[in-house]
């Protein structure tokens, strides 16, 4: 089995597709073409795509596009999606306003 983290592997050149303009991440408005290009730039994991493009970092925190991004990476790398790790889950798992996040109840009983 091919290692996904083998960055020296040749995944071939980026070939544009007719539906590259379709938006995949609605919150951050990232297109399929941008994500596919990022994979060819060497972003082989969902976390890397997140940091590189902000896909999955918007309001819904990847609830909608998480699976879609994973499937795109899997297709470009020619692996099955299950082999890819999903994005790291971190608190807060839902968007929280800064003023609320700062308003922490700190009573220690």
């Amino acid at each position, binding site marked *: 089995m091919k290692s996904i983290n083998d960055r020296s592997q040749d995944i071939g050149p980026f070939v544009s597709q007719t539906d590259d303009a379709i938006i995949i991440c609605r919150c951050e408005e990232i297109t399929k073409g941008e994500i596919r290009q990022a994979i060819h730039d060497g972003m082989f994991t969902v976390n890397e795509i997140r940091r590189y493009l902000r896909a999955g970092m918007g309001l819904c925190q990847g609830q909608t596009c998480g699976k879609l991004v994973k499937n795109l990476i899997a297709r470009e790398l020619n692996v099955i999606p299950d082999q890819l790790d999903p994005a790291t889950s971190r608190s807060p798992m839902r968007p*929280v306003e800064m003023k*609320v996040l700062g308003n922490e109840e700190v009573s220690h009983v």
Partner: protein
Amino acid sequence: MKRYDLIVVGAGPSGLSAAIEAARCGMSVAVFDENAKPGGQLFKQIHKFFGSKEHQAKIRGFKIGETLLAEADEAGVEVFLNATVAGIYLDKEVLVQIGAAMEHFKADTIIIATGAAENMITFDGWTLPGVIGAGAAQTMMNLYGIKPGQRVLMLGSGNVGLVVSFQLMQAGCEVVALVDAAPKVGGYGVHAAKIARCGVPFYLSHTITKAEGSDCVSGVEISQVDEDFIPIPGTQKHFDVDTICLAVGLSPMSQLLKMAGCNMVDDPRRGGQVPQVDENGETSIPGLFAAGDVSGIEEASSAMIKGRMSGLAAAAYLGFLNEQDKDNRLADLEVALDSLHQGMFAPGSKGKTFAKTDEGIAVSQSLLKKGYLDDADIERFIHRPDQTIKNSGIHPVIECTQNIPCNPCQDACTRGCIKVGKTITALPRIDAANSCTGCGMCIASCSGQAIFLVDEDYAPGYASITLPYEFLPRPQKGELGTALSRSGQPLGHAEIIDVRNAKAFDQTTLVTIKVPVEQAMTARFYQPKTNAAGQSGKKEIRQ
């Protein structure tokens, strides 16, 4: 920081069930849910549930939710609403947004029951306003009383797509088509038949290729797909719609479990990223459990049982329940769960095709492709060797032809006309040795709206057919309308000769129509002159 014996995240059927069991064992329990109303998905389920009595079959989902809430209240469970769990940390501490503040809570055990989120698929125009999830449509209609649109196309023929299509029509929308890329209907045949007889056409092996419109959806283009699900050029069909509903599966919302550090697996059969759990839902972290859809997409009936199991296991983990009692009670729940996990739609049967039913009858291909039984199917199922059926006098006709875990029809008939037997997935059988009084309880109890009462001797040359009707306005006695076939085709005039509403029918109206006797086995729905069901019959299709 407030402490509890158990913290449950999510007040859906699984979370509430877990909380009830644990609290009854004497634990102090807090449940957090981000919504203003508890109940999770249950509060949108206005249809009658499948299963058997112990699974609360024939009861409408939201009523089951109300019962759970009352039980939780009685058991002393503290339910926090508008309370979003934002994070989970070491030593079972959670961070919760309640109103405008972040609060910390700690417990000795935690049950994550956060449910699932809807999947999306992409196509040209999928981000246009008017493309919505089927669950979202259900939330709009059943929680907020808002009609999602006028003309809707539904993508996805699983139970969610089928149930929501029916509910859209109940809300007064027109469903112009039901589309699925798979070659056969994914959900229960009885759910499909309910919408097919309203005239909704099914397009299997088709997918959406384009949502049209500049500011919002004004139309949709679908295309046939090949075996690899690739659209075939030249097969496009167009529909004028203002809403496109997607019912393409759910994904577990398992982020909190991942955050907590549980061992996770990617299991497509369970819906995606799910925790590794034992038979009671305990994760790789002792004292941390997962129950319901978050641990594998199933349905509310099994979510409730799994919730109860986790609640009991958590109680035993902290010593609130002794091992012996725990084992006995879990064994009972196992049996209940097992009976749901049987038949053609069992989790273990996913992806399998069945040529025959357990009774050895060839399954209906028409049901799988078009959503309704054809004449040959009716002949094969109605006149099968294990049942006797009359063709004179009032008698039930049951059009339930798949092995699904369901048996309220058997309990409904006190005369013994309907038999399912011990195995709840067996097809219901009619025993003509017992005479039917025409009470109608079987019709109203059937979650699949698959039972009809037929009387070939109603009047010379005329038969009467009694059918379940769940649309408003309710037809009136004496009204003249159109009899529709199983595929929703008009058969001719039908006169309403009786309309029955009883408390025991739980909002299902029993409508009796008079039709020519030749239509006794073909007329299966009634369309009023001014169309209440929202289907205007003829669909506009521009090629």
